[in-house]
């Protein structure tokens, strides 16, 4: 699915920061296409999470973000939530609330055109997303009784239940075991295959190589390089942003692997 031009997410001239500290100084990003997983890569402090939070509307910024002929900066919190959803890196672990009610609260939190507003359809929709994420059997468990991986899956379910066309994920696999990492990533793949624009921050270069359609490498609030994973994640760009020597080799199945040489 390629989509129309106005289905692209266009991020231009973003200036943002925290207090007097400027993190992004006029950053522009190539148009992001529906159906793709776009991964932001770069060292700590590169501005990846800041960019994600700007798109999510969580911090104030200057510039423009165009999507479907709208400037996201001009939309209210409620309007923006119809298009964009953000999954934070960490979620509270002390909430005594069943998984299903947490999902329902995400739907009930603000009006949403595409959902039937009666309780039955909201419940059905919430159960549906839990089934898709594979945690329907945890529906009645309280969030504070879940493992870290299960809690992340529950958070992912809440992020997609409103059917956002832009899904933003801040390190979705950090603190997850290998099994949950693979599970979360293949779910994210399927959400992108629905025609969403998925933008995520990852630290694991091999995971980015394996799952992304497009990689944007950042350093010091600026774009270093971008392109298909094998193009963007090359020894040169990795050395440039991390100062680490790596080589890229094909594994026995022909998939590119990044191997650290130091």
């Amino acid at each position, binding site marked *: 699915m390629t989509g129309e031009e106005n289905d692209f997410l266009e991020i231009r001239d973003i200036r943002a920061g925290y207090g007097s500290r400027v993190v992004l100084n006029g950053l522009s990003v190539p148009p992001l296409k529906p159906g793709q997983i776009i991964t932001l890569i770069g060292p700590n402090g590169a501005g990846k999470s800041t960019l994600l*939070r700007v798109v*999510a*509307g*969580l911090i104030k910024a200057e510039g423009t973000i165009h999507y479907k002929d709208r400037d996201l900066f001009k939309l*209210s*919190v*409620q309007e*923006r*939530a*119809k298009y*964009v*959803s*953000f*999954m*934070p890196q*960490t*979620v*509270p672990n*002390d*909430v*005594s*609330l*069943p998984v*299903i*009610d*947490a999902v*329902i*609260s*995400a*739907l*009930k*939190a*603000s*009006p*949403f055109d595409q959902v039937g507003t009666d309780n039955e359809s909201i*419940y059905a929709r919430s*159960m549906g997303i839990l*089934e898709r994420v594979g945690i*329907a*059997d945890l*529906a*009645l468990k*309280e*969030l504070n009784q879940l493992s870290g991986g299960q809690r992340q899956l529950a*958070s992912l379910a*809440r*992020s997609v239940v*409103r059917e956002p066309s832009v899904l933003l994920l801040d390190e979705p696999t950090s603190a997850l075991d290998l099994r949950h990492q693979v599970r979360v990533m293949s779910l994210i793949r399927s959400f992108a295959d629905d025609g969403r624009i998925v933008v995520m921050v990852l630290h694991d270069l091999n995971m980015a190589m394996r799952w992304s359609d497009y990689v944007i490498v950042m350093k010091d609030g600026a774009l270093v390089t971008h392109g298909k994973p094998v193009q963007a994640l090359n020894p040169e760009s990795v050395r440039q942003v991390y100062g680490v020597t790596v080589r890229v080799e094909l594994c026995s199945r022909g998939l590119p692997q990044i191997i650290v040489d130091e």
Partner: protein
Amino acid sequence: MDSTTITHQYRSRIRKNISVILLLIVGVAAAFCVDIATGPSMMDIGEVVKAVFLPDSVELATRVIVWEVRLPYSVMALLVGAALSLAGLEMQTILNNPMASPFTLGVSAAAAFGAALAILLSAGVSFIDPKWMVSFNAFVFAFGAVMLLQFLSRIGRTGVEALVLLGIAMDFTFKALIGILQYVASAEALQQFVFWSLGSLSRANWENITILGGVLAVIVPFSVAASWQMTALRLGEDSARSYGINVVRLRFFSLVRVSLLTATAVAFVGTIGFIGLVGPHIAKLLIGEDHRFSLPAALLSGAFVMSLASIASKLISPGAILPVGVITSLIGVPLFVWLIFSKRRK
């Protein structure tokens, strides 16, 4: 587990929550009746119920005692308990802090300072009837303190943590000011102020019951309307915004509700601290954090504990009514500890 089973279990969970709320209603009603019956002359519960619902069917003396003395006291206990507990629940949610209570942000110290101005210096505004002066001052300062905090945190664009810190700073400031007033006050005025600050239901009358009841009746529907948003806010501020919640506005209006509830309650009965902490926790332990249910449960458990405290304040030293603010903690703490331990065992 198939989806029909889950749906079935979900429904029975909701039914369970509703039963807990019904049980709380029964508990509150029972405590309320016992509270009315308790006093220097103990009454028969049946007689109390008759006096409340069929005033003409009981003796004049009973009717007068129930309607003029006992009932205002007991109704005020319910209202104050409900108001402070609801305020506590909202405060814990918006500040994302289980230790928060209506008094976290210095509201009680501000109210006490207002009351101290009226009691110790007879300071107040001329258009207010002197008998309302203490309540008026307490209300104005409590409400003003929260609004000032809101203003400061808005211009500073600071987060929740800074709001709590500013609140603590406010608390210390007002306590220092109270200290100064106490230092210069006369012995009689000081005694009066100490009594006020311990919190007592003895100032209850039908006028201030109507005011507090009215405030509750106006505020509760707004709290109920915000209940899904409050539930979602518990999932983290970033997530809540991503679900389309204007968190700044939600927090602001919740703080307005909290300050109105707290300021009105404190204005009429003085500072009764523990209820705003324990009420919401009892609700959460019984029902969890789904605000659809924890909100009514908090209202009821606050009213219940306050009613028990009111009963105890009349029983502990026969003939004298101890200030209920002191008793609240004594009654609330054991109940609280028991609930925490019984939840752990489960």
